[in-house]
């Protein structure tokens, strides 16, 4: 029944540029000049002319070598980076698994942090109360609930963060390499959780270098090269092209 649903993510001519070196001059005048397509000295396009649409329930992988704009693309979709040209529209919210532990305050307890982060991602107080137990249970953090966040082990931090973000209702899930952390048992748990979310009809956007992960979750993939969208198609075909372009091993 979701087959006829319209696009959930629409990216149109997306482009963003960065400065190549921190030292390049920036003047107050820049603030008042309009955003033109013009490229200033010392700047480069990290991503340009990227156009694609995603339908609800699709699971999309993003492949490409380091520095080709994968994470940048994800950040644009997440809305934590603003494009210099083009637009990206997400119909509904996103649950970003990027910079996982970023939103957590070290001085506050795990309990406070869960409330805070879940709240900032749009859950109401009642919803948080309902889900609090399953969040804690998933992270296996029952014993450290009243410990300041900074005293947790780094693995535990990621666990807590993942279980909060994965409890959000948002229809789009963005995952950036975070699955590489945590011990094996927890990683399996994360995989299962993502599987479950996909089964619920959510949309997945996965950046990964692991072909196994990509094949496991995704049906379609975007191949970024030099900041441009080089190929957009079924996962196997995209991986084949990527491997052909970039040599020996996957």
């Amino acid at each position, binding site marked *: 029944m979701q087959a006829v649903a319209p696009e959930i993510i629409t990216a149109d001519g997306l482009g963003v540029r*960065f400065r190549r070196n921190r030292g390049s001059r920036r003047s107050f005048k820049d603030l008042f000049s309009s955003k033109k397509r013009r490229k200033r000295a010392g700047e480069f396009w990290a991503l340009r002319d990227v156009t694609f649409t995603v339908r609800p329930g699709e699971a999309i992988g993003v492949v490409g070598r380091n520095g080709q704009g994968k994470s940048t693309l994800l950040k644009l979709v997440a809305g934590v*980076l603003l494009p210099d040209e083009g637009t990206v529209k997400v119909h509904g919210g996103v649950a970003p698994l990027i910079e996982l532990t970023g939103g957590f*305050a070290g001085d506050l307890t795990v309990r*406070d942090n869960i409330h805070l982060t879940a709240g900032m991602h749009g859950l109401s107080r009642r919803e948080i109360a309902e889900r609090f137990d399953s969040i804690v249970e998933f992270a296996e953090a029952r014993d450290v609930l009243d410990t300041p966040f900074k005293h947790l082990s780094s693995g535990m931090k990621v666990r807590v963060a993942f279980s909060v973000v994965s409890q959000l209702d948002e229809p789009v899930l963005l995952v950036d390499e975070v699955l590489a952390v945590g011990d094996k048992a927890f990683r399996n748990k994360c995989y299962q959780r993502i599987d*479950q979310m996909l089964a619920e009809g959510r949309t997945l956007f996965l950046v990964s270098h692991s072909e196994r992960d990509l094949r496991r979750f995704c049906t379609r993939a975007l191949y970024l090269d030099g900041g441009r969208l080089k190929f957009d198609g079924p996962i196997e075909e995209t991986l084949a092209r990527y491997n052909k372009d970039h040599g020996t091993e996957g």
Partner: protein
Amino acid sequence: MAKTRQNSCVTSNRDRPAGHRAIALRSLRLLTVRDLKVRYSTSLLGYLWSILDPLLMSVIYWFIFTQLMSRSLGEAPYIVFLLSAMLPWVWFNGAVGDSSRAFLRDVKLVRSVSLPRWIWVARIVCSKGIEFLLSLPVLVLFAILTGAEANWLLVLYPLGVLLTGALVLGVGLILAPLVVFFRDLERATKLVLRVLFYASPVIYGANDLPQGFAFVAWANPLSGIFSLFRAGFFPDQLHWGLVAVSAGITCVILVVGIVVFKRSVGGVLKEL
């Protein structure tokens, strides 16, 4: 084994435009509470700190200007005179100082949540504002102890609070993004704030300025605002001309702040 949870509804059609503002406001509240919690949970004296600073400053100036020298500035009771402007000054000073680090302090948070960006400034204005309100009992206490007479002009107090909030927000919106590009501004801000303290009618009243220096009061939006805060105890300090100019400058700063902020926020996010 992961237990199956029952939140299997995918709420893709939660009406976002309306929900957006609600989420922004809720986040603002959460962040403000977080600021206060962090501040009060990590220090032993907690709440007392927000009182201690203005109180200590006031006592020092009270000592210098009434005990060491004979007071020719302001009005009696001088300690109430001092506190009535010192408390809002501490709000202004703290919020402007902090908003120069609005993005830098919570880099990771800013990078991971797609909230409207003005929240990072607004939350500082709010948390410092709440600390200000919480410090008001000190003023009340000293007013009672010294027998200062309150009058009906106390009704102007909320107007003062409103103007201070708007002014701080405006300055913060200008400062927060610019500091990301020009780190020097953070230190420059501290210097300017120190000068501004003496250029504002805190230890003196706007009327005390000598003839040739009246422009200092007119150019400084804080003088009108402080005159509102003082009017409730010292009706002679109320100067509607200054208040009007303050309100005007505040509006201009706020508008400039909004423009600068909108223009620069894209660059800020790249820079972080």
